[in-house]
């Protein structure tokens, strides 16, 4: 109860500090001193502290199962393990907004202490733009989604956390994702500040690159964790479903990746300034837009916590205010002073990055249209459609071929003007890739030509980056590692989708099922009781062609609060493949429906994404080294 009060008043104090901070920094703006008023820094720290206190008091209420708090009542239960009580804090609408605020205030504070060498006016303006966002979110939390609503009479028991959210990967997915997703706000604020100060320059590029990298690394990891959760917990046997919610995290990732590459050009050649600004604005706008789409209930998904229309309207208006503000700033202040530097020689690093951007924009528009078109259609013609994976695959996969090809060649080019070096070794690498692919795929796929070309270019990228990593002097390792990770990712996804096999059948205890590749034996079923669920565990033995036996134990769980039946797949992971078995009840008899899948190179998808973000991390640390 006390925690409730503390949390609530900390939020109000945090909001008041925002207003105070704006006032002081506006006054400080025309002050002749070179450094920002020390008060600004202290107040910004204090604001962060208040948000942390508020966040901790919500965690405290969750841990104590304090059901006088409405959020806790709606999303927790006394029988829940401690770990999920804590993670339940951000597993709901109110708590996750508090996490938004936490990241917003954390990033502006870090920005202020990390940007001491930057011009004072630019820093103040960044603070002001960020405070506009922060005030918006404070108001949003306090007016529409207060996490500290008081309930009386105090219920004895809570309603429980949705069981599909009770998963370790999902417990850390929101904080990591938010560091990237909300972290883009600081890029937004600082680019608007830089535009007004006409400070989009090489120096600014070097400074803001760190922030882009931080957001990018966390966003990449956060998306991966979400994907791992979908794979292990939802038991759909895939890692990416083109669900609107996945798409809204992918869209800022695409623009952020494009931005990262533009900034590399900016810090070298002071070019592509409009691109940089527009991408910075778009990235954060897409983050906000994603929040709107999933939180307003306009789309249905696991992330839609509540359907309160006032919330949707608030974010919608706020989103458009931010868009109007940023476009206003862009049109009024941005002038591309040195147009000449945007004329690139056709064969140069800059051109290849520009091409990369166009591809990213294309991928972005495909995902964007697939996500929002159903909403537009529904409103305009009241027709309901859903856009599924084939749409995205048909439109994206073929374009990966030129994209990967440019990606293998681009980093080998020099800045300004270049020619292709080591033509012969490149050609030989390419021929090797094609031959290798052809022999691997010869008997595996029906669409041999298309897949050979696609997999060859992925191999080509893989080999060229691998060669670069080992042979070239290590001046740009971060980038090479990230590109290697990306090529590995594409390769694992392709082989995963080409080589996956699946068996679906009904089977009862004691029965054997024979198929061309082996045999599935349902040994027994047993029951198990846990504090928050009861489970039926199936014991299966699967014999493959070589006679090797593996045991798999999928579960059917019946959660008690709220009552939901979930199917927990059992997955045996090796470096080569994942063996995935899920079972479901069949109504009215002793048969169980089982789905057995062999998914090659599954673990490499996660490894390559880790490699990708590790590359980003290396670039980030390298920049610090030089200073």
């Amino acid at each position, binding site marked *: 109860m006390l925690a409730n009060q503390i949390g609530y008043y900390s939020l109000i104090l945090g909001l008041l500090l925002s207003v105070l901070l704006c006032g002081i920094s506006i006054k400080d703006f025309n002050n002749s001193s070179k450094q920002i008023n020390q008060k600004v820094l202290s107040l910004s720290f204090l604001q962060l502290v208040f948000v942390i206190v508020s966040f901790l008091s919500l965690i405290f209420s969750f841990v104590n199962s304090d059901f006088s708090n409405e959020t806790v009542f709606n999303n927790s239960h006394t029988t829940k393990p401690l770990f999920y009580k804590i993670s339940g804090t951000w597993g709901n609408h109110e708590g996750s907004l508090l996490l938004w605020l936490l990241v917003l205030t954390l990033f502006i504070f870090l920005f202020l202490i990390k940007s001491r060498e930057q011009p004072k006016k630019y820093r103040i303006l960044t603070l002001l733009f960020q405070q506009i966002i922060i005030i918006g979110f404070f108001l949003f939390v306090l007016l529409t989604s207060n996490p500290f609503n008081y309930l009386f009479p105090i219920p004895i028991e809570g*309603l429980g956390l949705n069981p599909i959210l009770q998963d370790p990967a999902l417990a850390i997915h929101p904080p990591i994702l938010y560091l990237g997703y909300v972290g883009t706000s600081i890029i937004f604020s600082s680019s608007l500040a830089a535009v007004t100060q006409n400070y989009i320059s090489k120096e600014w590029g070097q400074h803001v690159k760190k922030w882009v990298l931080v957001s990018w690394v966390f966003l990449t990891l956060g998306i991966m964790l979400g994907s791992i959760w979908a794979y292990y917990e939802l038991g759909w046997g895939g890692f990416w479903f083109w669900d609107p919610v996945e798409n809204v995290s992918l869209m800022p990732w695409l623009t952020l990746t494009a931005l990262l590459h533009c900034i590399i050009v900016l810090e070298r050649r002071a070019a592509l300034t409009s691109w940089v600004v527009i991408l910075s604005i778009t990235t954060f706008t897409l983050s906000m837009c994603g929040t*709107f789409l999933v939180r*307003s*209930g*306009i789309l*249905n998904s696991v992330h839609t916590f*509540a*359907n309160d*229309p006032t919330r*949707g*309207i608030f974010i*919608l208006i706020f989103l*458009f205010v931010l*868009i*109007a503000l940023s*476009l206003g700033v862009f*049109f009024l202040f941005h002038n591309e002073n040195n147009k000449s530097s945007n004329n690139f020689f056709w064969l140069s690093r800059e051109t290849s990055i520009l091409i990369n951007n166009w591809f990213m924009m294309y991928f972005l528009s495909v995902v964007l249209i697939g996500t929002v078109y159903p*909403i*537009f259609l*529904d*409103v*305009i013609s009241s027709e*309901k459609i859903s856009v599924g994976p084939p749409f995205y695959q048909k439109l994206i996969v073929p374009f990966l071929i030129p994209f990967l090809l440019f990606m293998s060649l681009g980093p080998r080019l020099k800045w300004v003007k270049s020619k292709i070096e080591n033509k012969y070794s490149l050609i030989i690498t390419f021929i090797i890739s094609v031959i290798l692919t052809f022999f691997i795929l010869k008997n595996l796929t029906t669409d041999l030509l298309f897949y050979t070309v696609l997999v060859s270019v992925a191999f080509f990228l893989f080999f060229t980056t691998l060669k670069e990593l080992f042979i070239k002097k290590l001046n740009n390792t971060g980038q090479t590692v990230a590109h290697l990770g990306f090529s590995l990712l594409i390769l694992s996804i392709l082989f995963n989708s080409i080589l996956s096999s699946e068996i679906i059948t009904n089977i009862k205890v004691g029965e054997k099922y024979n198929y061309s590749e082996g045999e599935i034996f349902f040994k027994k079923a047993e029951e198990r009781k846990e504090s928050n669920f009861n489970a039926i565990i199936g014991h299966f033995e699967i014999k493959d062609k070589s006679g090797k036996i593996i045991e798999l134990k999928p579960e059917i769980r019946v959660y*008690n609060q*709220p*009552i*939901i*039946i979930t199917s927990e797949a059992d997955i045996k992971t090796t470096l080569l493949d994942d063996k995935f078995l899920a079972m479901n*009840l069949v*109504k*009215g008899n002793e048969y169980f429906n089982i789905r057995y899948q062999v998914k090659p190179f599954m673990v490499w998808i996660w490894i390559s994404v880790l490699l990708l973000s590790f590359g980003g991390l290396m670039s980030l640390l390298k920049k610090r080294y030089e200073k």
Partner: protein
Amino acid sequence: MKNKLSSFVVIIFLSFCFVVFYKGLNNPNTYSPKIKDKKNIPIFEAKDFNSNSYLNSEKIFEEDIFYIINIWASWCVPCRTEHPLLMGLSKNQSVKLIGLNYRDNLNNAKKFINKFGNPYSQIIIDEDGTLSVEFGAFGVPETFIIDKNKKIIKKIVGPINKEIVEEIKLIIK
């Protein structure tokens, strides 16, 4: 001039997006799929909510009037928002409401009814959700309108609202 034109285009485009999203928000997640050939209601046997005895479908739909089947659960939040409207509909003499309690805890469901009122003339239990599947349900809440020939003539996915109630009243008149 060119700059002005482009900002004008941008503003028009953004306003259009805003209007669409705004209308999309007010479009409730309710969805009434078109029914091409009117299906008979399935023949089934289900447990009664109050007495624990089994009822068959003929018995449940024996009268020569319109029926509304409403799939609900105590854990379903949108069900709470539509509940007052169901209470209103239940006062109508020319229709009977049948509640289909979907995958619920019986105690919680009883508390729900005690707290918000009982609009249903009969409640049957669908413990594992199979009966709802036989009706062709998408999720909870969902509402089916059944005419005097025992055919499903309309279904509404998602919580009902005032407009839908008016529509239902027109149908059953």
